[in-house]
């Protein structure tokens, strides 16, 4: 791919050079605005050619032109000006502001272009450069902190998914992810992660599908937040829409080439990794065979005398105090393959801890685009190559994509257009997640021995290629008991995946007359993916090979009639009537070997030790095959009066195959209006003020197969067929979900747009939620599909634009985003007190309960006296509740925000983004277990007596827990902290003790860019160029969660607020170069 591109590039370059060196005269001048201030970045093109330049920072330009040529000066928000080239070599130009241009045009639902000022609902636009200047492999992560009301959480693994929630979670258990639409094509943002993965039980995070969108192709992103904005999309858009408009060629501009290249170096942020104690080694406590109880006895060196050995099976560090003079037969002494066989080594802390696993990774993103146009058509062809080497050994993701977009006027009235993107993503060695051996953080954060040197483990693997683990069954049984050698696991038990994706659309637009136009569009989004997982023979888990073939497709057929007519001079009517047919299908096959592999390292289903078993039991199904269709008709009409008063209404009817026939058709309306107050107020300091209000209802269907009951057929037993009732009771009477929302907003610009704000208040009520409601299993079912509840989301969004300093050479722009969303469960069906979203390891659950914010965390709590003191039992430990249904936290943040700054001095600009989350709770399974295994620095140190905490009680160790005894007197009893059953870990603590505040303040992005002016590169055939130093996740300025990144999670989906084997934050620093020819 790369070589082809560079060949092509050479040709283009030669071509461009030829054009540029034709004989011409030099024209120079200055471009200024009405106030006389110089205008940088004005496009100056010789009419009818592709030749053009931009004015520099001082408004100066220089261009080669022939007499008789016409120079076209254009700048956003200003009127275009044309000046013929005469004898004079100097043309100074003043551009006037353009009222029409000022009313910015944005792309709204179904690709309908609207004047932004006429909209009665909130949208927030993000320029494409915001997601491509500091590129990431998943562009959604670049939106974090940039759009008010959009909450983005990256899962933290290489290529992992990003959870994108707009204005809170409206659906109790269904999809809460925003819809992505690229140039009119709805794009799947599903993740194919298993429910085990989403609930922390293991598996890989394969990312969500919208990551296939190439950030370098994005011209702009428009986020439609409320139902009124998205109502025309129908049921699927109830979670908001992210509309992406890609870059395209422009008519009459000739051929242009742009090249950009970025290289980012990445490293784990140490602040988000465990801090290990360095004083004590392996063990759970003093109960082994040696005299002091800390070591086992085994004759390792064969001299007939039993030697002290590490308790190999013990994945904890509550063992003997380190003592360099004590020689112990450790893991490296019992493997005959190693040089250290039968050698005792000093009992000391590891020189290289598990944190040394993290290596430097890199991401390179290279993009080339070619665009051009004639008088009747334009095209753009772009290619992108992304190569990411992860921060764990043997991990990488490669992505190549090609996009073509073109449009051609076939006649004066008929235009044909096409956009097609092909993306191929190949992953290898994605990080295992959750509580599984595939996740090295499981041992590193929860279960390990601080005496094990990671580099020695590494060298042992590379020297032998075998699973030489620190955690074997014993000197006489070297098979791993719980944990594998991490390097063995990374290099032998890796996954691979590949996804080929095609999406795009073909459309025809016909202008019937000056009022009507008709558009037909076919859009498609299909992908095929293959995910292969491996576990080699010799691992702690049963060896296996599995493959998941998944084919997903969506096809949309749209027909839209649009009209626009000035009824009188003051009154304008515009609108659309249309029909949409949508077909979604998924067809997948999951197969896995059974009972192990016969030939080690050979990954094929044919290598299965036992006969392969297929099953229709859920997750993953062996086979899944579903198609759904929704047919919709809709209409929209908008009235504009005096370009000041606007009113718009929409209505849509959908019919969905996922609902029972009797209830499968649903209607929903929206109405919105706006008033441009600034047109009524004559004040020079006020540039623009708009009031807006809207009301909308949106209906929503469900996923296939929730209406009729089925059986799960499982593997036969001794030749007898086996089937069981599914644990989900389906519902023949489901009806569509309905959300009703209203929104008010005001936006304003003052003082020559030096200050601007946009504030929205919204309230959305989602009724008749279609939800699999967990029921008492005494009913024979685990869940029942019901129209179960009402959830309300309400909140404020504030967008503040400031331009505190504006000088000739220096400019400072600041954008502040702030959003607060309250998501509350108003009611569930009578008799249902609580809806459990997920029941998670550690005995906690994430819930939606009436009167509570969505996402309450339930688990065990401490027992308190009437004044709120924790009660301590007579043995010195806290009393904890016997019940696990106490509310101990909530995953919803209080508010989120971002502050983006751009400081520009001449050609140099500095941008940085601070991203803030306040509140929200997280349960850490990592400290829940890790505090019981004594690996963290928290487990050592001195107690109130000045003695080491880890001394026995008799030796003055232990801690006095703050609290009161049953009779109300302060506790004075010391609790043991020298073994696993200390008061802080899972063995004795309440779940509540491991709930942390997930607040953070992060320096999310920074970039330092230098734009080469025309002067510098005038001699080169280059239109403009820039180089930049960029960084992401540079600094966690503040957080309250110890040892971890409060943003780290499991996957996209509804289970948030839980960490199990969390991955560290990854800091990226790099440089990028952009050149436009």
């Amino acid at each position, binding site marked *: 791919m790369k070589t082809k591109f560079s060949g092509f590039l050479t040709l283009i370059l030669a071509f461009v050079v030829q054009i540029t060196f034709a004989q011409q005269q030099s024209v120079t001048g200055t471009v200024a605005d009405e106030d006389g201030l110089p205008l940088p970045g004005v496009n100056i093109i010789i009419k009818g050619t592709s030749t053009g330049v931009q004015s520099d920072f001082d408004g100066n330009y220089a261009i080669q032109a022939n007499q008789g040529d016409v120079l076209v000066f254009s700048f956003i928000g200003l009127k275009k000006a044309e000046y013929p080239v005469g004898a004079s070599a100097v043309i100074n130009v003043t551009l006037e502001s353009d009222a029409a241009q000022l009313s910015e045009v944005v792309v709204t639902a179904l690709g309908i272009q609207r004047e932004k000022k006429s909209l009665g609902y909130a949208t927030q636009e993000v320029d494409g450069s915001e997601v491509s200047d500091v590129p990431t492999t998943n562009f959604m992560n670049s939106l974090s902190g940039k759009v008010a009301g959009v909450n983005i959480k990256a899962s933290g693994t290489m290529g992992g998914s990003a959870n994108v929630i707009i204005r809170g979670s409206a659906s109790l258990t269904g999809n809460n992810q925003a819809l992505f639409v690229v140039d009119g094509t709805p794009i799947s943002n599903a993740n194919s992660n298993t429910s085990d993965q989403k609930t922390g039980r293991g598996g890989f995070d394969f990312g969500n599908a919208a990551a296939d969108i190439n950030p370098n192709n994005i011209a702009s992103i428009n986020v439609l937040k409320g139902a009124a904005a998205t109502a025309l999309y129908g049921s699927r858009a109830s979670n908001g829409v992210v509309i992406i408009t890609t870059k395209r060629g422009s008519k009459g501009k000739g051929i242009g080439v742009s090249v950009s290249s970025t290289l980012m170096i990445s490293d784990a942020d140490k602040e988000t990794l465990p801090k290990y104690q360095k004083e004590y080694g392996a063990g759970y406590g003093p109960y082994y065979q040696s005299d002091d109880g800390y070591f086992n006895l085994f004759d390792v060196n064969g001299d007939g005398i039993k030697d002290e050995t590490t308790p190999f099976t013990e994945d904890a560090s509550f063992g003997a105090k380190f003592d360099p003079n004590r020689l112990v037969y450790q893991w490296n002494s019992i493997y005959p393959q190693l040089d250290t066989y039968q050698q005792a080594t000093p009992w000391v802390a590891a020189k290289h801890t598990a944190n040394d696993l993290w290596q430097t990774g890199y991401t390179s993103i290279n993009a080339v685009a070619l665009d051009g146009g004639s008088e009747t058509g334009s095209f753009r062809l772009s290619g992108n190559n992304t190569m990411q080497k992860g921060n764990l050994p043997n991990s990488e993701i490669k992505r190549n994509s090609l996009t073509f977009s073109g449009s051609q006027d076939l006649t004066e009235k008929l235009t044909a257009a096409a956009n097609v993107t092909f993306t191929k993503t190949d992953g290898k060695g994605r990080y295992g997640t959750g509580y599984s051996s595939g996740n090295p953080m499981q041992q590193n954060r929860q279960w390990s021995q601080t005496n094990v040197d990671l580099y020695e483990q590494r060298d042992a693997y590379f020297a032998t290629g075998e699973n030489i683990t620190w955690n074997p069954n014993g000197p006489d049984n070297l098979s791993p008991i719980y944990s594998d050698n991490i390097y063995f696991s990374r290099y032998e038990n890796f996954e691979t995946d590949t996804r080929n994706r095609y999406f795009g659309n073909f459309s025809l637009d016909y202008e019937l007359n000056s009022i009507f136009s008709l558009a037909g569009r076919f859009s498609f989004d299909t992908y095929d993916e293959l995910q292969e997982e491996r576990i080699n023979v010799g691992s702690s888990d049963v060896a296996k090979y599995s493959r998941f073939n998944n084919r997903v497709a969506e096809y949309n057929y749209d027909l839209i009639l649009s009209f626009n007519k000035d009824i009188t001079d003051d009154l304008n009517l515009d609108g659309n009537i249309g*029909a949409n047919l949508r077909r979604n299908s998924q067809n997948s096959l999951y197969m896995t070997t059974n009972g192990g592999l016969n030939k080690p390292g050979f990954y094929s289903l044919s290598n299965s030790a036992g006969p392969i078993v297929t099953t229709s039991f859920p997750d993953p*199904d062996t086979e899944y095959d579903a198609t759904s269709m929704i047919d919709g008709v809709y209409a929209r009409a908008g009235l504009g009066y005096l370009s000041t008063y606007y009113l718009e209404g929409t209505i849509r009817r959908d019919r969905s195959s996922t609902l029972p026939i009797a209830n499968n058709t649903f209607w929903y309306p929206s109405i919105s209006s706006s008033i441009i107050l600034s047109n009524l107020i004559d004040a020079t300091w006020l540039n623009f003020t708009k009031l807006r209000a809207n009301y909308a209802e949106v209906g929503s269907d469900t996923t296939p197969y929730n209406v009729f009951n089925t*059986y799960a057929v499982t593997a036969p037993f001794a030749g007898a*067929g086996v089937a069981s009732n599914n644990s989900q009771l389906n519902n023949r009477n489901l009806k569509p979900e309905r959300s009703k929302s209203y929104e008010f907003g005001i936006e304003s610009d003052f003082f020559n747009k030096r200050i601007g704000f946009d504030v929205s208040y919204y309230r959305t009520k989602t009724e008749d939620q279609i939800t699999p409601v967990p029921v008492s*299993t*005494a009913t024979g*079912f685990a869940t029942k599909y019901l129209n179960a509840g009402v959830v309300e989301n309400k909140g404020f969004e504030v967008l503040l634009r400031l331009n505190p300093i504006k000088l000739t050479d220096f400019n400072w722009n600041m954008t502040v985003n702030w959003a607060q969303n309250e998501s509350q469960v108003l009611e569930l069906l009578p*008799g249902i007190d609580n809806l459990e979203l997920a029941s998670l390891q550690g005995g906690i659950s994430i819930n939606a309960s009436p009167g509570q914010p969505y996402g309450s965390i339930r688990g065990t709590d401490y027992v308190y006296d009437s004044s709120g003191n924790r009660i301590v039992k007579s043995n010195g430990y806290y009393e904890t509740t016997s019940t696990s*249904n106490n509310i101990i936290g909530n995953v919803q943040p209080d508010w989120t925000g971002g502050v983006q700054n751009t400081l520009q001095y001449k050609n140099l600009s500095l941008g940085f983004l601070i991203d803030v989350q306040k509140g929200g709770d997280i349960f850490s399974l990592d400290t829940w277990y890790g505090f019981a295994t004594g690996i963290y620095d928290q487990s050592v140190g001195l107690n109130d007596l000045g003695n080491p905490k880890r001394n026995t009680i008799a030796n003055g160790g232990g801690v006095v827990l703050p609290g009161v005894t049953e009779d109300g007197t302060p506790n004075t009893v010391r609790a043991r902290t020298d073994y696993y059953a200390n008061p802080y870990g*899972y063995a004795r603590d309440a779940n509540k003790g491991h709930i942390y505040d997930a607040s953070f303040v992060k320096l999310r992005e920074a970039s330092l860019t230098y734009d080469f002016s025309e002067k510098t590169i005038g001699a080169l055939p280059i239109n403009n160029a820039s180089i930049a130093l960029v960084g992401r996740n540079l600094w966690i300025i503040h957080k309250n969660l110890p040892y971890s990144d409060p943003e780290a999670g499991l996957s996209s989906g509804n289970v948030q607020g839980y960490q199990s084997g969390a991955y560290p934050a990854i800091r990226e620093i790099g440089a990028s170069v952009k050149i436009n020819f």
Partner: protein
Amino acid sequence: MKKYFLTIIALATLWSCQTDERYENLNKDPKNPSEVKADFLFTSAIVSLNDQMATPNVNDNIFRFLAQYFTTTTYLDEPNYDVNQRGITDRHWSELYRDVIFDLQDAKSIVEADSEITDAEKSARIGQLEVLEVYAWSVLVDTFGDIPYTEAVNATEFPLPKYDDAATIYSDLVTRIGAASTDLEAGQGFTGADVLYSGDMDAWNKFAHSLQLRLGMRLSDVNPSLSKSTAEAAIAGGVFTSNADNAQLQYQSNPPNTNPLWEDLVQSGRADYLPAATIVDVMNNLNDPRRATYFFNETVDSYIGGVYGGSNNYGSYTHVGEAFLDPTLPGILLDYAEVEFNLSEAAKLGYSGAGDASAHYNAAVTASIEYWGGTASQAATYLTQPSVSYDGTNNQFATQFWLAMYNNPLEGWSVWRKYDAPALVLPEDTGNPIPLRYTYPVNEQNLNQAQYEAASSAIGGDKQTTPIFWDIK
């Protein structure tokens, strides 16, 4: 202008006009059937029931810890009777209700609606389904006490099922198991799907009566008259007469149809379980010949059990016997030894037809030793020991009964609860009391709260130390 509107509206309407049938068909899952034969459900229920009774997995049940046959090496929550951390009671509850009882009841209605089989065949099949259902209900009562019964497994009518009194349920089960025998005699039941007895209806009848005997004897303290009539009916009907009659599932060599013990002892590659000192010490004192099968001295020279509920170093103790590492090891629902122990107790209580208490005791011990690979002469020698030779004491009887139930651990725990012997120990780590029942599932607290609270107060508190109704001594 109008014509454009009309055209587009007409087109749009036409376009979106699909038949109802087409919509509905799309919503029918081609990969999961909406109908199956009762045979499939019957087999599934047998396997699910056996799996739940046999598994030692700390996510599913803790029977082997409750009977103190096993303990663990490193992770001590479950042998210390923490059932909430892993939602053990939730899983036990849902397995039995959802994957056993519901499938059995569904199978019954499919059989009843089946026009291709005779009424006699229907009765026989319903009899087979009924025996298993009574078994499953009794397991639920024996573990929890009061449970949803009359309103259970009816999600449409009773989404929040109320709990019924355990003693009343037991009485009903006694009636039902009696009626099941009559059904079984009507004709030929399931054959190919019958992975317990391959359609041997005589064997099923013995199983029904043996279960009837178990239920009867369970009631001996709390309801002597019902106990007597039930046990006598069982004996008259004909119970197991040899190990060949055992209700046990022959597991297969390949997953997922292996004995669940194999999954956790062998396939997992872990070393979590050890025989507990509680049983090892008793057997050492009795010089029990079954030790060679029950245990395996892999790393030590003599039989040493792990400290119950305390931290144990795997290599320092006796391991679980090799027979239990075989994936095909049968899972036991009810065996001949248990029947003989129950007959012995019935005889002791003077139930008619029960015969001689001592003879049944000897037969029980012999059956157990022989089942686990011992010889008749080993059994005879064992029985001559003063501490083993039948003396009619509660402690001796219960100890032998308990030893014989090593691979039917729920029964082992029930023996301890009913006879209050042998002496079990408090778990080393926490000293928590040995449970007399499971606490109700956490899910019931969250999802069926009102009924849960009513039940909780009815039994005198949802605690592990609240006894089951038959455990009055």
